[in-house]
Every structure is written in structure tokens, then in C-alpha cells.
């Protein structure tokens, strides 16, 4: 199954290395594929390398999308984390 949700990046300096690393760690705990979509670009939430090229600034809107087992839980958890990261 496929599930997606939009959230706004609230981290003060955007998703730089440390918050992005936390996100990747979280995403890796799910077996389903998780993607972050932002301004026409897309990256696997499990790849810190790719994630950094998205330009996840403070205040920007992104879509968290997952496909596969527990997709909904994964998206909800990742979105919640994104909102919590400072």
C-alpha cells in the first residue's frame, strides 16, 4: 500500500546533518520504502547522501511518502519526527 503526508520543516536551520541523520536512522527502522519529496525533487529517506541535496530549508513544505509494509505508520512516525526536530 501507499501512503503520504505533507509537513513543514520546522528545524531552525533546516534539515542539516544532525537532524537529517536522526531522520535517516528513524527511516531505516522500517522495511518499507520511504521517500521525501520537495520542490520537484525526490530522495530516499534512508539515504543521508541524497537527502542533503534536497535543500530542506526551514519553513519549506515536503511530502513524506511510503510504499509497502506499515507504510502508514512509517509516514506518521517520520512526519512526527520532522515536526519535532529543532
Amino acid at each position, binding site marked *: 500500500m501507499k501512503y503520504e503526508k505533507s509537513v513543514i520543516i520546522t528545524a531552525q*536551520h*533546516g*534539515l*542539516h*546533518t*544532525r537532524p*537529517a*541523520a536522526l531522520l*535517516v*536512522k528513524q527511516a531505516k527502522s522500517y522495511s518499507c520504502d520511504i521517500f521525501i519529496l520537495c520542490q520537484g525533487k525526490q530522495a*530516499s529517506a*534512508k*539515504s*543521508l*547522501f*541524497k537527502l*542533503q*541535496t534536497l*535543500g*530542506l*530549508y526551514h519553513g519549506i513544505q515536503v511530502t513524506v511518502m511510503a510504499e509497502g509494509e506499515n507504510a502508514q505508520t512509517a509516514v506518521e512516525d517520520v512526519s512526527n519526527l520532522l515536526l519535532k526536530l529543532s
Partner: protein
Amino acid sequence: MPLSGIVVSPGIAFGNALHLHLHPEKRDYHLLPLNQIEKEKQTLIQVIDHKKNQLLQHLQRLPASSHNYQLIEADLLLLDDDELIQNICAEIERFQLCAAVAIERIFSYQAAEINALDDHYLTNRSQDILSLASRLIDQINGAHNVELSKIDEPTILLASDITPAEFSMLPLKYITALVLKTGGITSHTAILARSAGIPALFDCPFDQESITNHQVLALDALAGKLYVAPNESILSRLTQLKKTTLKQKQQLLKFKHRQTQTIDGHEIPLLVNIGSINETTHLNDMGVEGIGLFRTEFMLMNTKSAPSENKQYRLYSDILHLLNGKLFTIRTLDIGAEKALPFLNSLPEENPALGLRGIRYTLQHTSLLVTQVRAVLRAAQYGPIRLMFPMINQVEELEAIFDIINQCQTQLTQDHVTFGQLSYGIVVETPAAVMNLASMLPKLDFISIGTNDLTQYAMAADRGNPLFTRDYPSLSPAILSFIHLIISTAQAHNTQVSLCGELASDPHVAPLLIGMGVNELSVNLPAILEIKSALSNISYAQCHLLAQKALSLVTIKALHACVYTQAT
């Protein structure tokens, strides 16, 4: 067979070998044969696995709350990325590249992509990516970055080159000697090694493969020989030699508190060149007349930001206090060239020695100069300070500086901040300054001849390039003529001439310089007693005779025969 090189800091040393950069960077840009592609992919996977393990081990030794922990964890996550490995493998396959080049390319694309984002905070991450790439490539090339803090035995450090900034991070307690493949006697690292009293051999063509880490080495940095796995007879000879030199040094100790004077009582102001705050602690037991050159840029080298006015003011005031009325000569920041500071984002220049350095730099970045001048002016109320400017070519630069100094004084007065008066001078170190000297002298209280850079610019020869350091020694007829011309011009204007280059620290050359009319010498700390001893053995009249003779000689060979056979 011992290896030979140029002695840039004399002494005898024993220790275990340690390569600082085990292999130079190498990349193979050739197309890989198709049958090697699989092997190259395996190499890549192994290297990344190995780096991951290394990072993991490192991580386990750190507290989870530390900043380093989070950075290392981020590196680990970057590498723990199947997509990344797939991308690099695809690059290897598609372009038939070796793993190192494929890593270089993929990571550079990535860094460029991040750089293109218009968020300063995020674009900084591209540096992390490039740094990780170069560590991976080092791993492929078999280079091991030495952890300097782990050195705990007498060590002779081997490297192809060491920058002044790297030198200042060495644990000098355990480093008994330094052997470099490149470098010349007047490079800044050589000056630092001499100041620290660390024996050093430069321009020594050692073979990285034939000397392994921890192999026993003996360095005779008097004769310029490096012995690998020396036998008993060499060891005992060098141990004896070390004892003898130590004894000679002890005999020199009687000069510690003596005035510097010739045998017939002509007093010569002897000052010292200072490149670090640590060196100032020895000032009072050397019997010198003060500091003749305070290299302010070295105190900034391992900091993350330019020091504030108050910080500099406190430092200069402390040193004046220590000097207790003796002269304090401060050279304004001489940055640029090889002495790049980590916190200055200078643009790369094709030819930094001829680029934005010395006063050129500070006149374009006046806030650095203003901060320094204000700190110096404020400190000057506690003792005599001479302020001098590096890399001056012409009177226009002096006018610009004095405008800035006037503005600083006006501002300080308006702010009701007290300050003192300074004497002003320049470092004469370019041929243009020599030619323009007469027009600048009316504005100056003294000049100081910087023979190291003067030689480099007069000869148009890079002072760090080992290919010709032997052909252009510091003492040559051309340089003596320059010094002679400078002195005659200064004498016509009744201006004091100091000499702060490496030539002054050579006990054979010091009497010659005095004979030529140099008024004061500024030398490196370890050379002080030797210079005092050399001058105490010769009369003032003999110095003049030596100068007359030396100035008449037109070849390096004849000049060296004349100067270096003088009894000192």
C-alpha cells in the same frame, strides 16, 4: 649509506621513524581493463566497510552527547547507504574508473549539488562530503592519518612537506627531529624548527617504502646525514658528538648575562625574533635588548577567528611588562602566501608569494589592521613599541597606513581611550623597497632588513623549492650588495638599520653585517649565545675589514671561503 639533505636546524637526534603522510595522493585516471571492474567494485565495498568499522570503533569511545559523536555518526550514516554504493559501482562500470576516481566524482557531484542550494547553513555540508571522500581515497591508497596525540616515544618525523600550521600542532615533547623531502633553509617551517631547537633535515630524498614506521633512525643534522637502522659504531659516534655539542652549548652559557660586544668593547644591540608566546618566557635569561621581530601572524594560526582588540592589547601589554622597558618590535600581520590562516577564506592564488600578502592583504582588509593598530597604540602606554610593516614597496602604501593610524588615534581620543606613542619602521624585503627607500625614510624611525624574502624576491626564486636552494644560498654577492645599498641610503638619512633575517643568526655572518654598518641584529632564540660568542672574538675594526673584503668578492665560492673560514 646514509641519506643526505640540507641542514635547516642543527643538532643530533635519535628516534623511531614515523611517516606523517605515508603516501602522496595518487589517482589513476586510465580506463580500467574490463576484467578488473568486478575487483574494483569489491575494493570499493571493502573500503567503505572498513571505514564504517573504523568510525564505529571510534564512536564507541566517545560520549554520545559530544559534538564529535554526532558528526562521526553522520559520517557513518552517509556511508551506510546502499544507494550511494550502487551509484559509485555504476560509475566504476560505466566509465571504467578505479574506485578512488569514482568516489572522487560521485562525492564531488554531490558536493556541487549541495553547494547550489541557496542556504548557507546547508551548503556548508558540502565540505563534510568532500572531506569524507578524501579520507576514503586515502584509505584506498593505503595512507594512514597519524594521530599525533598518540605519539609517546622519541620520534623522528618523516614527511614530504609540513606547513607552519601543521608544525605548530606537533607534540614537540616527543618529536626529536624532522626530516622533509622538500623545503629550503628559509621556509617558514625551517624557521619554526630552528626556533623550537628541533634538529631538521630538508630536501632529503628518502624512499617511503624503504623506511618503515618505528624503524630506528639517527640524524646527524650537523653533517646533513640520516642513518636508517644505524649500526653500533654509528650510534656511539653520534652519541659522542651529541655530548660534545651539548658541552659546547654549556660553555656558551657564560655569555647569557653578558653584554653583546666585540673584543674591543663595541656594544651591539642584540634582539630576538619571536614567533610564539612560549618563546617569550626565555627572554629575560638571555641578556638581549628586546624583541626585534614579533611575528604576530603565528599567534593567530590555530585559532578559529581573528583575535579581538582587547585580546591583542592584553597580549602586547603582557609582553611589554615582561620586557621591562626593553624594545618591543611588532610586525603587523604578515599573512597570505604559505602562511594562510584557517579562518581567512582567501581565494586561491596562482602565485601566492607574489600575491595578496603582507601589507597588501591588510590594506585590503583594513578591519584586521585597524584592530591591530588600536591594540598596539593602547599597549604603547606601558613601554616602547616599534611597529613595522611587511612587504612595503613604495611610499603610497606608507601613506595609506599612516592615514589609518591617524584615524585610529582620532577615534581613540574621541572614545577617551588612552594610548601611547609608537616608532615606525618597515621590513625592507623587496627590491622595489630598496630602490624607493630614500622617499620613504623621512616618514620612518627605523628599518629592518628581511633577508629571507629579499633573497626570494631578488633572485626570483621560491624559497621553499628544493630544486635550487643549493644554488641560491642566503649569503651571496647580490644580497650583500643589496644590504650595502640599503645601509648607505639609511645612513644618509640617519636612520637606524636592524636586520632580522636568518643571515643575522649565522655566527659567521653576524660580524660581517656589523662591519657593513648594520646597527642591530635580531636573531632566533637558539642562536643568541653563539652570536654573542662570535662577536666577542672579533674587534670592531676586524668586522670592517671583513666587510670590505667580502664586498669585493664576486663569486659565492670566494665569498663563502672568506666568511666561513673566519675564526669565530
